[in-house]
């Protein structure tokens, strides 16, 4: 059908030579009549209703076009009056619409209008042809309003504007950017305005029966406004008018939205208000630029918002907030380009924005709470404050230099935090936190890397230091509430501040002093944490101190420095160790951490760390031979400190230090023989160690607290270590052949000390040491082949000295035994009651073997016999049965040796000497047995 109508249209425009304008018009009228007649006839039949309605629509469209062509199409011009033709066209259009309305079909009527518009579209021979479109549009509006076919209006709006656009396109395409004027501009603008006005009037006056109609109407209203503006923009011959055009149109739309009908229906009010406001917002950039635009927008948005408050109108408020937020968003997106440019104007704009936002957020959010009950409104009011924070952030960014930006942000964050605290706003607190996070991050990523200086001072130090201080301040201000006994501060920012200071130390200090710096930081944090009763600050101090320790272990120990100067290792680690001890003491004694078990354990850990550092420092700073001595002194100091401070940590560290000194002695000090003719370093470095070990024993034994804690065993170990140290020193320092004699001397000393001090442990040691004396005396001194270099047989002197030593030890053993018998104390160990027994048999064994080796073979039995008598006499004197039996045993040994060996192998002289002396000895013993029989029986 459309094709048929189009074909007739072309026919009328065609310059046929055989057919004049009247003929053409007649043909057109005839075809239209046939189509209409056929359509009307067929429409009665249900079966052909659809094609029939198409014929009707097409017929009317053709008729309308024929009327149009009768004046406007030259090939069909039969009328000379444009007014007549216009009336004719209006009559056809009216009839057409009237007729189609009979069928009450929006589709049919719509088709009719479509055909009308299409026909006009393809025959734009003059600007006046647009009038037909206008009339058609007016007719459509009338039908729409009458029949409430609002969907049809959407079609009409599209058809009218696009038809106009189609007409404009060839005209506008000919224009140049320099000259956009064209003669039809006023006419075109007027026609567009008429379209807009007609459709807008239709929108405002219509009656709405159901929601769907309102929705379609809204689409039509938006489409009307949008297409109107789009085509105006397309044909724009005067861009300078855009501001006023948009402003006026916006104002008109806004005003229309306030009409009673619009407000009654609500939706037109919303739509037109939004459109009006948007147009007014959009108008501003056409006249203003830069910050003024944003400010004007913000003013506009705020005005809308305030109007919404004032009029209690939610649309205004929302529009106001929307405009504000969008403008702020736009500002925020654009502002990063202006960072660090000292753009004060922009900065002030942003500050004003921020102030406005916070005012709206707080003032209206609290005073007009009833207006923001809806979740969306309440949310928007909250969001606006966040935009305020963003505006503050950007304001600082554009006003501050690159280096000071972080400080600025932190300052603003602090102000916000203070403000939030004053107004008790969680949102603003959150914004302060956000700003502070950004500030800290910037300090970390930007400021820490800066190498610039300000008046000779490191900008990094200044700015990061400020950020750290502000971070602590924010941490304090953010949560001012007291929680129990502790002032709760925001832990994250105090942690951030501490991390920043730690990083600052790392950047600003020499590598060797970083660990010391961290330790000082840990100390300050600890004191502050105790002062404020802040667990978080204390934990930060723990972390800082542990980090300092780890850093020292991994980095500082190799810092030897220049020869002759105090090593960086020393002056960096020593203060750190002292700080660790101090931290331990503070935590141990402070009432503010009493009951905190973890704090107690960490405090103990600090002492271990400090002691390890001191121990390592000794190793690195001192010569290898001095290390054991230093460790022992250190262990002694720790031991005394552990007792005074009642710290088992320190005492156990002292035990470990002393044990380490003891072990190290065997791998270093023992090897230090020194040069001949002087006291060897071995002596003067090992003797103090032994003294320290003994001191620890004595101190432990006399201290009730240590005994109660079961540390008496450690003291006993110390005593054994002392003795072992001296015995080892004797072994290495004395000539080999004098070792046994030296050890026997030690036996005497130990037993004497044990007797005088009544300390049984020394008696044990003396007795125990007598066994190595015997072993060494026999295996080394006696079994060794003679020393050629010595020139004489030294066995008499060396083994004899050992025997004499054991004799003296035996005397001391008796004294010790007597003392023990007089004042028995505590549980007894082996040899406690009879130390003289082991000593005696040790001495006799060594003496007997010695005589066997050093005496001429003929005199061995004689010497043993004399020894037996001496032992027997001594046994009588001492009243010891075991001794007496030993003496008798020796005499029996002699008798046996005579019978088995001597009698058969000795020379004559040796034989008679042996027999005489041994015989006399046996007789003497026999006499003594008889003489003192009763006494002996008593002993038995």
């Amino acid at each position, binding site marked *: 059908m459309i094709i048929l109508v189009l074909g007739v249209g072309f026919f009328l425009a065609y310059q046929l030579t055989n057919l004049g304008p009247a003929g053409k018009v007649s043909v057109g009228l005839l075809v239209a009549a046939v189509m209409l007649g056929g359509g009307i006839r067929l429409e009665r039949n249900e079966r052909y209703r659809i094609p029939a309605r198409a014929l009707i629509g097409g017929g009317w469209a053709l008729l309308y076009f024929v009327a149009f062509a009768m004046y406007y199409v030259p090939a069909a011009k039969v009328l000379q009056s444009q007014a007549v033709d216009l009336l004719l066209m209006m009559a056809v259009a009216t009839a057409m619409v009237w007729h189609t309305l009979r069928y009450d079909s929006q589709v049919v009527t719509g088709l009719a209008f479509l055909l009308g518009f299409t026909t006009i579209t393809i025959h734009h021979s003059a600007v006046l042809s647009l009038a037909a479109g206008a009339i058609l549009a007016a007719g459509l509006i009338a039908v729409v309003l009458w029949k409430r076919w609002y969907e049809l209006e959407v079609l009409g709006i599209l058809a009218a504007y696009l038809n106009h656009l189609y007409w404009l396109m060839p005209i506008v395409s000919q224009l140049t950017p320099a000259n956009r004027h064209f003669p039809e501009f006023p006419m075109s603008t007027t026609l567009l305005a008429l379209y807009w006005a007609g459709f807008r009037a239709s929108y405002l006056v219509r009656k709405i029966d159901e929601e769907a109609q309102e929705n379609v109407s809204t689409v039509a209203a938006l489409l009307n406004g949008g297409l109107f503006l789009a085509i105006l923009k397309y044909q724009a011959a005067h861009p300078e008018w855009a501001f006023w055009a948009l402003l006026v149109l916006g104002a008109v739309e806004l005003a229309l939205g306030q009409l009673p009908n619009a407000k009654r229906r609500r939706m037109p009010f919303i739509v037109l208000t939004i459109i009006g406001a948007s147009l007014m917002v959009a108008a501003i950039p056409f006249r203003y630029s830069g910050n003024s635009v944003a400010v004007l927008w913000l003013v506009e948005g705020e005005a809308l918002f305030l109007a919404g408050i004032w009029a209690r109108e939610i649309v205004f408020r929302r529009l106001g907030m929307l405009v504000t937020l969008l403008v702020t968003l736009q500002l925020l997106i654009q502002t990063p380009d202006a960072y660090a440019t000292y753009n004060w104007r922009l900065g002030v704009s942003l500050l004003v924005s921020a102030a406005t936002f916070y005012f709206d957020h707080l003032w209206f959010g609290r005073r007009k709470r009833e207006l923001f009950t809806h979740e969306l409104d309440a949310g928007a009011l909250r969001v606006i404050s966040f935009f305020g924070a963003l505006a503050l952030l950007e304001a600082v960014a554009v006003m501050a230099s690159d280096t000071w930006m972080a400080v600025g942000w932190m300052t603003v964050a602090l102000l916000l935090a203070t403000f939030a605290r004053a107004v008790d706003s969680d949102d603003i607190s959150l914004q302060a936190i956000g700003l502070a996070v950004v500030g800290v991050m910037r300090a970390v990523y930007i400021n820490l890397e800066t190498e610039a200086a300000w008046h000779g001072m490191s900008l990094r130090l200044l700015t990061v230091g400020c950020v750290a201080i502000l971070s602590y301040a924010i941490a304090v201000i953010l949560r001012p509430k007291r929680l129990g006994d502790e002032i709760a501060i925001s832990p994250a920012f105090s942690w951030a501040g501490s991390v920043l200071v730690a990083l600052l130390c790392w950047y600003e200090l020499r590598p060797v002093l970083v660990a010391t710096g961290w330790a000082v930081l840990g100390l300050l944090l600890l004191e502050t944490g105790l002062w404020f009763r802040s667990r978080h600050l204390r934990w930060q101090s723990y972390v800082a101190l542990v980090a300092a320790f780890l850093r020292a272990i991994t980095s500082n120990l190799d810092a030897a420095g220049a020869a002759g100067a105090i090593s960086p290792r020393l002056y960096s680690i020593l203060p750190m160790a002292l700080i660790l001890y101090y931290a331990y003491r503070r935590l141990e004694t402070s009432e503010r951490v009493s009951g905190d078990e973890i704090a107690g354990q960490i405090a103990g850990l600090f002492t271990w760390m400090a002691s390890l550092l001191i121990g390592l420092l000794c190793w690195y700073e001192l010569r*290898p031979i001095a290390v054991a001595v230093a460790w022992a002194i250190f262990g002694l100091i720790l031991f005394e400190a552990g007792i005074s401070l009642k710290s088992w940590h320190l005492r156990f560290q002292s035990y470990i230090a002393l044990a380490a000194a003891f072990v190290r002695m*065997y791998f270093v000090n023992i*090897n230090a023989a020194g040069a001949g003719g002087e006291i060897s370093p071995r002596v003067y470095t090992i003797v*103090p160690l032994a003294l320290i070990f003994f001191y620890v024993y004595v101190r432990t034994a006399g201290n009730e607290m240590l005994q109660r804690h079961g540390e008496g065993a450690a003291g006993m170990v110390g005593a054994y270590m002392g003795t072992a140290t001296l015995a080892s020193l004797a072994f290495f320092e004395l000539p080999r052949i004098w070792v046994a004699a030296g050890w026997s001397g030690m036996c005497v000393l130990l037993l004497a000390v044990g007797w005088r001090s009544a300390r049984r442990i020394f008696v044990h040691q003396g007795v125990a040491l007598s066994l190595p004396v015997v072993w060494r005396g026999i295996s080394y001194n006696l079994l060794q082949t003679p020393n*050629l270099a010595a020139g004489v047989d030294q066995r008499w002197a060396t083994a004899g000295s050992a025997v004499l030593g054991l004799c003296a030890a035996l005397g001391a053993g008796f004294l010790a035994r007597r003392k023990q018998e007089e004042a028995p104390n505590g549980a007894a160990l082996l040899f406690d009651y009879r130390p003289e027994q082991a000593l005696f048999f040790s001495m006799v064994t060594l003496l007997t073997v010695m005589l066997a080796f050093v005496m001429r073979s003929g005199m061995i039995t004689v010497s043993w016999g004399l020894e037996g008598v001496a032992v027997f006499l001594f046994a009588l004197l001492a009243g010891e049965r075991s001794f007496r039996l030993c003496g008798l045993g020796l005499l029996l040994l002699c008798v046996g040796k005579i019978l088995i060996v001597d009698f058969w192998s000795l020379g004559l002289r040796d034989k008679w000497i042996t027999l005489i002396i041994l015989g006399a000895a046996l007789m003497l013993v026999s006499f003594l047995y008889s003489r003192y029989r009763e006494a002996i029986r008593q002993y038995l």
Partner: protein
Amino acid sequence: MRRWAALVIIVAAATAALVLVQRRKVEAPVGPQGVLNAIAESERDATRVPARMTRISDDDEIRAGNEIAKHEQSSESRKDPELPAIEAHLQQVAGRMAPYTTRKLPYRIHYIADPWFVNAFALPGGHVFIGAGLIAVMETEDELASVLGHEMEHIDHYHCAERLQTEATLRKIPIAGALASIPVAIFQAGYTKDQEMEADRDGTYLAYRVGYSPTGALRMFEAFEKFEGSARQRKASSPGEEAGEVVSDLLTGYFRSHPFSAERAEATRRLISDKNWPPRPERDLQIDCTTAHKTINRYIAGSPAPTKNKDAGEPPCRMRPESKAAVSVK
């Protein structure tokens, strides 16, 4: 009060020691040598009693030594034409010292004409072997005397006999049995520190006793130091490294226990000092080992090991033409 006084005195003494070693820059080798020596000495003491109880007679020792020596003498180096003359000279030097040993044994000195044999060792019963490589290290006859004296004292002190006994027991060979099956390497491996020190002390004394300078022994130890390498005094860079070195030395040193030459030299210096032995001029060595010396120098310089027969055909050592057979002795 007494406690505090004691504490102050002890700390003062320890601090004084610490300051003294620091100011005097006292060096002490870090390692387990002292401990290892003590262990070795204790082991030696432990074996001395059973060894003494089961000690073989001198005749059995001489017979066993002859058997082992016979096996060693069948080696290639015996074909050196200079061998008889050199052995005669060595025997002459040793012969002067033999009367002053404790045990009266037939000491016989054997020359091993191998420049790569930088060693000397003793067998039970009086046999001493010395390599051309070791003679090449020497410059004076005093040095030679100290080495021979040292080896003779290993025999004199029953070190060789005790080792023979131990090996025979471990291999379950009767002393009168097939002792030739005991490898000579057992006797070349060196002895415990204590035994080495003993042999050093009395070997030096023997040489001094017959007129040689005791500095010969010192010069020998200095030469041996070159073979042992240096850097033993270097301080470890960390306690961990030091502990690792100590453990390593402890494990390897336990099986070595042979004293370092520096330590032996120090002991010898102390002996000289203690005995107030006056300095004596040293005598030139009568044996010319230029060929062997070149080989040894290459070895000391760390050149790749040349083939053993590189200088084959030319004797590593020979008697100097101007050498006098007799040396006047006191």
